[in-house]
């Protein structure tokens, strides 16, 4: 029993990442009708926003302290970061420690702006082209983006730690009446899950309870009619692209402590999140979220030793097997709408 709960918990954080990326992909697909192969790259750029902010916060200047000497006997140089200099040692250190959560604020405007530029500059010209062309051009864009990141940050993963408060693990089992140390779960993964739940419900609330969201939903259902009513649907859809980019970006920021960002992490996630979208049903937002968590949990169940001894190698392929079965038996996916991407 405790093993099952542990696997569900383990599946949640990966599932949260899948769900966030798939949500963004579905937003773009549902509004603009574009299959965006560069979405994984947006996730990766988000993660590198966290890296960049922690580097910016660590900018420092050197002062010479005559009272101390280093091992060669010269006066010691002491590095002080500007942040500590401006805000005092304690508060400054806290700011540096909290670089990753702060990077969320830092990344949202960057990602929205970036989304605007990509949509206006490139994707706009591909609405009328076939889906294959859209896949190809965004695939090219993904290559370009990851190579640019590689040129700036190098090819090695960059460790980006979470704040000290969230280091260590939480003994989940004692809460439910199991023995101590039966179910141990890192704090940060819990934070990640809570955060993604917040973002997902935020996006849904935005679409459901605001006038802007209502117009966007109307546009997703029938773009032309909304246009005929005199509403500028293009402008709103461009904003949705920026929003989707921001969702992918913050997902990447928060994922940075779990998995050190490297330049091809986007490509690794891309394939899986496409599978998630297809399983959930093209164009269905709840489907994308549901499928994300479902596949994340299934994946972690498949990596249990008991399951692996039963069917060897299942942990490597479970997601693809599920995707193939779903695609062949339920062509619209779990919650797909009628008439979306039915060729």
């Amino acid at each position, binding site marked *: 029993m405790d093993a099952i709960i542990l696997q569900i918990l383990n599946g949640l954080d990966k599932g949260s990442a899948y769900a966030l990326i798939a949500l963004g992909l579905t937003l773009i697909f549902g509004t603009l009708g574009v299959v965006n192969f560069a979405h994984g790259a947006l996730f990766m750029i988000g993660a590198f926003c966290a890296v960049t902010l922690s580097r910016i916060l660590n900018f420092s200047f050197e002062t010479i302290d005559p009272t101390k000497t280093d091992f060669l006997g010269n006066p010691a140089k002491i590095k002080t970061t500007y942040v500590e200099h401006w805000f005092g040692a304690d508060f400054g250190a806290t700011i540096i420690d909290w670089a990753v959560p702060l990077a969320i604020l830092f990344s949202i405007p960057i990602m929205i702006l970036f989304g605007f530029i990509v949509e206006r500059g490139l994707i706009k010209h591909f609405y009328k082209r076939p889906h*294959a062309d859209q896949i190809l051009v965004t695939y090219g864009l993904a290559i370009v983006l990851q190579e640019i990141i590689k040129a700036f940050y190098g090819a090695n993963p960059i460790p980006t730690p979470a704040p000290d408060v969230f280091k260590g693990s939480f003994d989940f089992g004692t809460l439910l009446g199991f023995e101590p140390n039966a179910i141990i779960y890192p704090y940060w993964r819990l934070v990640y899950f809570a955060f993604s739940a917040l973002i997902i419900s935020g996006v849904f609330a935005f679409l459901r309870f605001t006038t802007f969201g209502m117009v966007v939903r109307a546009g997703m259902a029938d773009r032309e009619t909304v246009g005929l009513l005199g509403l500028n649907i293009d402008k709103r859809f461009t904003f949705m692209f920026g929003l989707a980019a921001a969702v992918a970006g913050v997902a990447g920021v928060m994922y940075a402590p779990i998995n050190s960002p490297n330049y091809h992490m986007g490509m690794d996630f891309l394939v899986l999140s496409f599978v998630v979208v297809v399983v959930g049903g093209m164009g269905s937002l709840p489907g994308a979220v549901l499928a994300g968590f479902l596949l994340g949990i299934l994946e972690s169940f498949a990596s249990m030793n008991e399951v692996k001894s039963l069917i060897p190698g299942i942990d490597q392929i479970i997601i693809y097997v599920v995707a193939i079965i779903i695609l062949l038996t339920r062509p619209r996916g779990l919650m797909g709408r009628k008439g979306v991407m039915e060729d």
Partner: protein
Amino acid sequence: MLGLNKKDFSLLLVVAALTLFAPFILNPFPEGSGMAQFNAGYPDLMQRFVIFGIFAIGFNILLGLTGYLSFGHAAFLGVGSYSAVWMFKLLSMNVIPAILLAVVVSGLFALVIGFISLRRSGIYFSILTLAFAQMSFNLAYSVLTPITNGETGLQLTLNDPRVLGQSATADGSIPVTSLFGLEMRSTFEMTLGPWLFQFNAGYYLCALILLLSFYLSIRIFRSPFGLMLRAIKSNQTRLNYTGLNARPYTLAAFVISGMYAGLAGALMASMDPLAGAERMQWTASGEVVLMTILGGAGTLIGPVLGAGFIKYFENIFSKINDTVLHGWFEFMPDGLENLIVGILHPFIGKGWHLTLGLLFMLVVIFLPGGLVEGGQRIAKLFRRKKPDDAGDNAQSTPAE
């Protein structure tokens, strides 16, 4: 001739001339000169040109004719490589049985995957092939280790049985791949003044097979079967309404292109007898998509051009480093020189993928027909001018 019309036959002749004289054509610069690093006429690279050419020709039969975009073709290449290496391990070092087995096995593999994937079309087909390829890749890495040797990759050892050959040569080393005794790695070198030309047995085997597959692809393009595939690309629904079932045709195209990929994989293993799982990764499938689109999907010569282009840049462009650039721009004032080198730095050497990505995007955006369309547009530009200079410009279709 050979069942081809005059235009196609001359195209075949051009390709034949290009491949057979490649050791001369790709080695235009004398040995030791500053430009010698742009020579591509060494066996290893020339083999890669033709092998990826075969891969792309096969892929084009699927993408170019039926319009189905597969993101999983590298799986067939990997399967071909594995089966060829197994043939070297078990039977003999002769390449013919290895190639035959690889083509058959990858064909069967393509039949199974195609049968399932082709039940859907469009983006779903792409995702399905992607899922199958990633599945094969993950399995090759983990559970199938007894067959694939996991991360290390499948290699020849001295303990292999090789029933028709020998486990080890007289001096105790692993035998090399051969065609009835003609060793694949044997190279005839010809020195002509300052030039050094290398004629490699393995390359010529690959080149002959490339010519055969190119001929076959021309025949497929011009056959009623090819016409049917084009009909599927232009409007499958209408085809269904005329009472024709499109699926057997697309499946046949899928299997043929899978067999081409297997053939390419077998040749890769024949030139260098090892096979690794990374050949099956989806980025490897992406590469052949890049080649075909860059060259021009749906054209005969396009995929070969694209493959040659990408492989040339991968090997030559990536060798250019800052020192070489400084050498080129030496004549400029220092500041300007450093500025230009600084600007070019991210695009060369290890960053050549960036150049490739940009180039690919430009081609998809502006030249959907690839390099071939680019060539045709330029040719048209010159041809238009001759009859009458003035009046025709207005009629020419504006570039998108």
